[in-house]
C-alpha cells in the first residue's frame, strides 16, 4: 500500500502564535499546515505534495469551539471537526443547514478527525462546506502575526485548491451571521453514490419580506461546477423582489446553469452538470422557500 514516503520535519506548536511564527519562518513551497489531514495525507501518499516542514495545529484547542451570540451570530473555530458541527445542538437548532451538510461529508471516520477549517482552506471546488458558507453569507477570519482580517466566504476560494489565505496566515474562525427573520436555507449535493463527492452541489438562502410574500434576499451558491465554489448572482437577481413560484425557480436554475463553468470529467460531462445545476437550484430553492415560509 502507499505510505507517505517523503521525509519532513514535524512541529507541534502549542499556541496559535507559535504556529504563526513557524509559518513565517519557512518558504511557502516547503511548508504545510496539517489539521485533520484527511485531504493532505492522501495527497502526500500520492506524492503530489512533499513538504519539508509540517506544522501540526490539530492540537490547538483554542481554535475548537462553537459559540452562538444572539446578535453577532455563530462563531465556529477553524479546528472544529465536521462531526462536532454535525452533532452540535446549537447548530442543529439555529443553523440546521450546516449540520445537514456535515452529515453527508464523506464518512463518520473522516468527520471525526477532519476540521471545517482544514476543509475550507484546502480550496477544493467540490467541497461541501464552502457553498453552504457562501449561501449563509459567512465570513472567514484569518490571523497572522501582523493581525487579523476577514473575508467573505465567496471571496475566499480563488481557483482549484487555491485560496486567499496567505502563506503566513491561519484560517482561525468562521463567522455565520444571524439569519434574518423569514429566512430559509437548504443545501443539497448530488452524486451517483449517496454522500460521495458532489457532481454538483447547490445551497440556497431565501429571505422573505415580513408578509412572507416576496423574496427580499436570495443567495445561490454552487459547488463543483467551477474552478471554485461560487455565487450565482444573476440567478439570485431573478428571485429578488419577486414572488417566488416554481417557474421562477426554474428560470433561476437556468440562469445559474449558465453562470457556472463546469468541466467534463470521468464522472459526467459539462452539459450534464449544467442540467443538474438547473434542476438542483429549482429543487433546493423550493425547499429553502418552504423553510422561509415556516420560519
Amino acid at each position, binding site marked *: *500500500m*502507499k*505510505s507517505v*514516503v517523503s521525509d519532513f520535519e514535524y512541529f507541534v506548536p502549542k499556541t496559535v502564535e507559535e504556529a504563526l511564527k513557524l509559518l513565517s519562518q519557512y518558504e511557502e513551497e516547503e511548508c504545510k499546515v496539517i489539521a485533520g489531514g484527511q485531504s493532505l495525507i492522501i495527497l502526500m501518499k500520492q506524492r503530489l505534495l512533499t513538504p519539508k516542514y509540517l506544522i501540526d495545529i490539530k492540537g490547538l484547542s483554542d481554535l475548537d469551539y462553537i459559540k452562538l451570540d444572539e446578535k453577532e451570530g455563530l462563531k465556529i473555530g477553524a479546528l472544529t471537526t465536521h462531526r462536532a458541527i454535525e452533532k452540535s445542538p446549537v447548530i442543529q437548532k439555529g443553523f440546521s443547514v450546516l449540520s445537514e451538510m456535515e452529515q453527508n461529508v464523506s464518512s463518520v471516520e473522516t468527520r471525526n478527525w477532519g476540521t471545517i477549517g482544514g476543509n475550507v482552506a484546502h480550496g477544493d471546488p467540490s467541497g461541501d462546506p464552502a457553498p453552504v458558507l457562501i449561501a449563509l453569507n459567512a465570513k472567514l477570519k484569518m490571523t497572522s502575526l501582523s493581525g487579523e482580517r476577514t473575508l467573505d466566504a465567496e471571496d475566499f476560494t480563488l481557483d482549484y485548491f487555491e485560496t486567499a489565505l496567505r502563506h503566513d496566515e491561519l484560517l482561525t474562525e468562521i463567522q455565520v451571521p444571524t439569519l434574518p427573520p423569514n429566512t430559509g436555507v437548504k443545501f443539497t449535493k448530488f452524486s*451517483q*453514490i449517496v454522500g460521495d463527492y458532489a457532481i454538483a452541489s447547490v445551497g440556497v438562502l431565501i429571505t422573505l419580506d415580513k408578509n412572507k410574500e416576496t423574496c427580499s434576499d436570495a443567495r445561490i451558491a454552487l459547488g463543483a461546477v467551477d474552478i471554485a465554489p461560487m455565487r450565482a448572482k444573476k440567478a439570485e437577481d431573478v428571485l429578488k423582489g419577486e414572488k417566488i413560484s416554481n417557474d421562477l425557480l426554474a428560470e433561476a436554475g437556468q440562469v445559474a446553469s449558465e453562470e457556472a463553468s463546469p468541466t467534463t470529467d470521468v464522472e459526467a460531462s459539462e452539459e*450534464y452538470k449544467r*442540467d443538474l445545476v438547473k434542476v438542483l437550484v429549482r429543487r433546493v430553492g423550493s425547499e429553502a422557500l418552504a423553510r422561509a415560509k415556516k420560519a
Partner: protein
Amino acid sequence: MSEYSIIGKPTTNVDGVAKVTGEAVYTFDMTLPNMLYGKLLRSPHPHARIVSIDTSEAEKLPGVKAVITGKDTPGGKYGLWRRFRELADQEILATTKVRFIGDPVAAVAAISEDIAEKAVDLINVEYELLPAVFEPLEAIKDDAPLVHDDFENNINATRHIEWGNVDEAFKKADYVREDRFNLLTQHPAPMEVHSSIASYDKGSGRLTVWSSTQSPYFLQLGLADALKMREGNIRVIKPHVGGGFGGKNSTMPDSVNAAVLSMKTGRPVKIVFNREEEFSTTEHRTPMHLSIKIGLKKDGTLLAKEVKIITDGGAYTGLGATTLYLAGTWITFPYKTPNYRYDGFRTYTNKMWASSVRGFGAVSALYASETQIDRAAHDLGIDPIEIRRKNAMTPGYEAPGQYKVESCGLLPCIDKIEQRVKEKWARLDKDEGIGFAAFAYMSGGIFNWIDTPYAFSGAMVKVNIDGTVDLFTQASDIGQGTNTVSVMICAEELGIGIDDIRLHPADTATTLADLGAWGSRETLMNGNAIKAAADEVRDKLLDVARMKLGENIVYDLDAKDKRIYLALRPERGFSYYDIVKDAIKENDGEPLVGIGHYTPHRKGMVSPAYAMGIMGVRAKVDRETGQVEVKDVIVAHDCGQIINPLGARGQVEGSIQMGLGFGLCEDLPSENGMILNPSFVDYKLIRTREMPQIELFDVPTYDPEGPYGAKESAEATTAPTAPALANAIYNAVGVEFDSNVLRLEKVLKAIREKEEKGKGKGRR
C-alpha cells in the same frame, strides 16, 4: 430436509472467531524472518519493444538486495490454459516487448518497501514505441499491430457452438429480432490486494509460496511452468484470503517475481500490490461486443437463437478463453433453445488482460438476453413472466452435444416470484418499474484447460483415537464459506459435531489437488470428495458397529448425533467415540483414514449441475437527473439442497451488490490503454445506503450429482441483477439500453431522447 442433523441448518462460520477478533491471518499481514520486500517496475507504454534496461543505479541503492529483469528469470511461459501451450502466454517479466501499461519489466527486492520503491524509480528502460490497438473491432483488422506475433489478426481464441438448424428455424419464426450490445468491464475489487510471499530453500531446492489466491493448485502449476521447476518442489499455502471474485485465479506477477527474487537472494520476499496496481494491472471482467438474434412463435415460444461475440481480451489469455466459451453457453440459459448457433472470437488488445469475474460470462451474456426477451415480450404483447415460463428449462432438458440439466426448479421459482411480486409490489409510485430476469449457472465446470491428471477435488479424513477428526482439503475459502461447508459435510457424514473437526485447508503439500474457487465448484466438487472420504471412514465405523451388534446384515445402521445405531431400532447402538476406539484398537492400530475424490464424468461440455432461478427488481427513476434508485429485490433460486442457508444468503446478497455495480456504476474507462480511475474515489462501488432490501426464496430440489443434492449458490445471482434493473427502468420510464453501467448521464440522455421522439412505442 429435516432428516439431516447439520446440512441445511444455519451454521455460523468456522473461521468466525478468527475473523471478528482480527486474528485471521491474510498473506497481506504475514512477515517471515529475514524477509525482503519486492516491487515491480511496470511499463508506462501500452506497446513497446524493450531496447535496453539499466539497473545499475537501482542496484547501488543501500538496502537493495536484488534487481531482476526478464533475462534473470528462468523464462518459462505460463497461464491457466496450459493444455494449449500457445495460450499460456504470460512471462515473469517482459523480455522482448511490453504489451500493456503496467506490464512488468523489472523487479526489486529490498529491506523495506520504501527502499524497493525508490529503487524501482532508479531503473532506466529504453523503449521503442510500437503502434498499439485498444479496441477488438480494430484489432482484428489486417493492418492492426500484432500484440502477439503468432496470432493472426490478434485472434487469441475462437469458439463455435451449434445445434439444430438455426437458419431453417428462423424462417419458421413469426417474430425475429436482432439486438447488439456492448458489455463493459468490471473490476473484482477484492478488499485484500494481491499479496504473495515466496521463500526459496537453497538446500533442498524447494519453494514455498503463501499467496492471496483462489487456487493454490493453479498457482503451484503456474509457478512450476514459469520457474521450470518440478511442481512437487513447489508448495503453495493459502492463508485467509480477502476476496477473489475471479481476479485471483491466474498466476500473477506478485507470486512469480517474489519467487525469483527469493531464489536470487536466498531470503523470503513479499510483494503486495497497491490499490492503483490492483485496479490497473489485475484481471477484470471481459468486455464484449455481442449480437443476439432470436426467432419466436407469436405465442412467445423460442425457436432459434444466433449469437456472435467478440471479446476484448487484453494482452494475455488468463481465463479469457473460457469466458468466450461460457458467454456463448450462458446466453442459452435458462430457456429451451431448439436451434442455436454461436460464434465467438477473443482478441488481443494492448490493455491489461480481461479474464473471469464472478458470473464468468453469464453477467455479460444475460444482460443481453434477459433484456432482449423482455423487449420481445412487449412487442408480442406477452407478460414478461409468462414468456419466461413458456420457455423455461425443465428437469432432464438437454442441449444436444452440449449440456443436460438434471434437476431444475425454474418453474416453481417463476411461480414463487410471480406470486410474491403480486403481493408485495402491487402498487407502484410514479416513475417506478418492476423488471425480471431469469438465470442459471454451473456448479463447477467439466473443463480441464489446466491440464491436470488429478481428480478435480480430493479430500482426506483422519479420525483420531479420541474421535476428533482432521479434515484435509485443498478447497479455497476466499470468503464464500467453503471452510464451513466442508466441515458441515464431514460432520454430517460421520454423524458428529462441527466442533469435532479440525480443518486443514489449502496447502498443496498436505492436501490433495483441488482446482480452486471458481465457477462455483467447491460445494459440489469438493463437497463430493469430502463426502466420499468421510464415507470411507464411516463404512469402517459401521462395520465395527455391525460386528458388535451381531445383527443380520440386512439391517442398516446410521451415524448421527455422535452415535452409531440400528436405523430401525435407534436405541440399539453405540457412542461414536467408543466405535472409533474399537476401530483403531481392534485393527492393530491401523490409521483410521478415508480418502475421497471427485471428477465429473459424462456430464456434457459444461457442468454437472445447474442452479436456476429468477429475480425481480423494483426501481425508481428520477427523470430530471437520470438517478436510479433500486428499491427492492426479490429472488427465488433453486440450489438443490442448500448446505448452509446463512452462507447462501450472504453470498446472494453480495452477488447482488456486484450485479448492481455492473448495472449502474462500476466501470474502468481507459484512454490509449491508460485506466482513468484506478482508485475507490473514482471507481464507484455500491455502498450500504444504495443497497436495497433483498427477499430470498429457496426453492429446493435435489440434484443427484451434488452432495445431498446440493448445487451452486450465489454466483448465479450476479447475472440477473443488472438486466432485471434495466427492465425495471424500461417499465418505469420506457427507455432501453444496449450497454450496462447505466450512469446518471446515460439514463438522462435516453429519457430526453425518448421525450423528444414523442409519445408512443418508439421501438427500433
